[in-house]
C-alpha cells in the first residue's frame, strides 16, 4: 500500500506521513508512542493533529478510505463542539463530515442526503461514499450467508447499469469486478462483462502464479503440497469457467451484431 504511487502522491500533498517505529533502542523516547495512544500491536494507523492529539483511529486500509477520513476530520472536529452546544451549523457540511467519518449507517445516509440541499461537489462525494457503503453491505450479507453469490452478482450488475462505479483507491474494486462478471455473464451483457473481465483474469492469473511458486518453494512439505495442489486446481477451474463465460457473452454479442 505505502509503495503505491497514488498513496505517495496523496501523502506528500495532503498529510504529513509519520512512521512511529518502535526500535527497542535504549532510552529512545518515541518508542513509547504505541502504548501512549492505546495501541497493542503492529501495524496500527491513526490520524493525529499537529499537537500530537488523537484525531481518529478509525481509518480503513485503502487509499480511498484514508483520503475520505482525512478530508472529513477537520470539518468534523470544528463543527462537533458547536453541534454539542446546540448551535446552528451548516447542515450540509455537518452531514458530509459525519458521512466521511463513517458515523452514518447506509439508510440514515441516504435519507439525510435526500433531505438536504447539497451542492454539486457534495452530491458527487456523497454519492460515491454511499455507493461504497452499499457494496460493503453486500459483502456483509455474503459473509453472513444471508445472500447468495448469484444474487450479489445481479445486484452489482444492476449498479453497473445505473452508472455506479467505485472511486479510485477503494478496496472493494476486486469484489465489484468479480460480481459484475457473474451478473453480466448471466445477462449476456458483453459491455458490462468485458468492463471487469481483464482485471478479474489478471487477479486469477496472479493468484495462480503465486500458488505455483509456493508449490515449488515448499516441495518437501507434504501438507503444504496438499494445500497448493487443491488451490491450484480450484484457481485453474475458476479461470476455465471465466473463459467459458467470456466466449458465451462474446458469441451472443457477435450474433446480435450480425442481426
Amino acid at each position, binding site marked *: 500500500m505505502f509503495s503505491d504511487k497514488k498513496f505517495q502522491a496523496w501523502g506528500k500533498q495532503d498529510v504529513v*506521513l*509519520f*512512521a*512511529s517505529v*518502535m*526500535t527497542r533502542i535504549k532510552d529512545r523516547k518515541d518508542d513509547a508512542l504505541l502504548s501512549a*495512544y492505546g495501541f497493542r500491536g503492529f501495524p*496500527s494507523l491513526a490520524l*493525529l493533529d*499537529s499537537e500530537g492529539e488523537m484525531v481518529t483511529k478509525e481509518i480503513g486500509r485503502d487509499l480511498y478510505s484514508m483520503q475520505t477520513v482525512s478530508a472529513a476530520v477537520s470539518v468534523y472536529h470544528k463543527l462537533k463542539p458547536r453541534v454539542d452546544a446546540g448551535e446552528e451549523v451548516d447542515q450540509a457540511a455537518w452531514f458530509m463530515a459525519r458521512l466521511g467519518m463513517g458515523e452514518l449507517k447506509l439508510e440514515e445516509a441516504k435519507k439525510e442526503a435526500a433531505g438536504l440541499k447539497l451542492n454539486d461537489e457534495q452530491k458527487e462525494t456523497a454519492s460515491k461514499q454511499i455507493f461504497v457503503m452499499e457494496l460493503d453491505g453486500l459483502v456483509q450479507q455474503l459473509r453472513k450467508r444471508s445472500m447468495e453469490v448469484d444474487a450479489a452478482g445481479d445486484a452489482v450488475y444492476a449498479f453497473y447499469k445505473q452508472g455506479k462505479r467505485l472511486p479510485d483507491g477503494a478496496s472493494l474494486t476486486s469484489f465489484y469486478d468479480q460480481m459484475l462478471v457473474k451478473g453480466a455473464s448471466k445477462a449476456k451483457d458483453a459491455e458490462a462483462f468485458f468492463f471487469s473481465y481483464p482485471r478479474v483474469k489478471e487477479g486469477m492469473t496472479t493468484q495462480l502464479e503465486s500458488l505455483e511458486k509456493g508449490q515449488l518453494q515448499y516441495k518437501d512439505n507434504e501438507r503444504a503440497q496438499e494445500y497448493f495442489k487443491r488451490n491450484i486446481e480450484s484457481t485453474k477451474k475458476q479461470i476455465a469457467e471465466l473463459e467459458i463465460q467470456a466466449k458465451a457473452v462474446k458469441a451472443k454479442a457477435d450474433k446480435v451484431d450480425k442481426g
Partner: protein
Amino acid sequence: MRTLILSTLALLVAAPGLIAQGKSQEELKKLYDHKVNEAWYTDGGWIADFAAAKARAKKEDKLLFTYFTRSYSP
C-alpha cells in the same frame, strides 16, 4: 491439546520481543537504519521523528497520518 495451542499462541505473540532481547543495541540501531531506508519510507517522504513530524504538520497546517510499526523484528 488446548495447552499446546495456547502455549504456541503465546510464543507467537512473545516471539518478536524475545527476538529483540537477543539483539545488541548496535544491532537494533542497524535494524532501525535499515527500516528507514526502505523504498516505501524514502520514496514516500516519511518522517520518523515525532517532534519533527509535529513541527512540519503545524507549519503546513496538516494532519499526521501515523503508521505504527517496528524495526526490531519482522
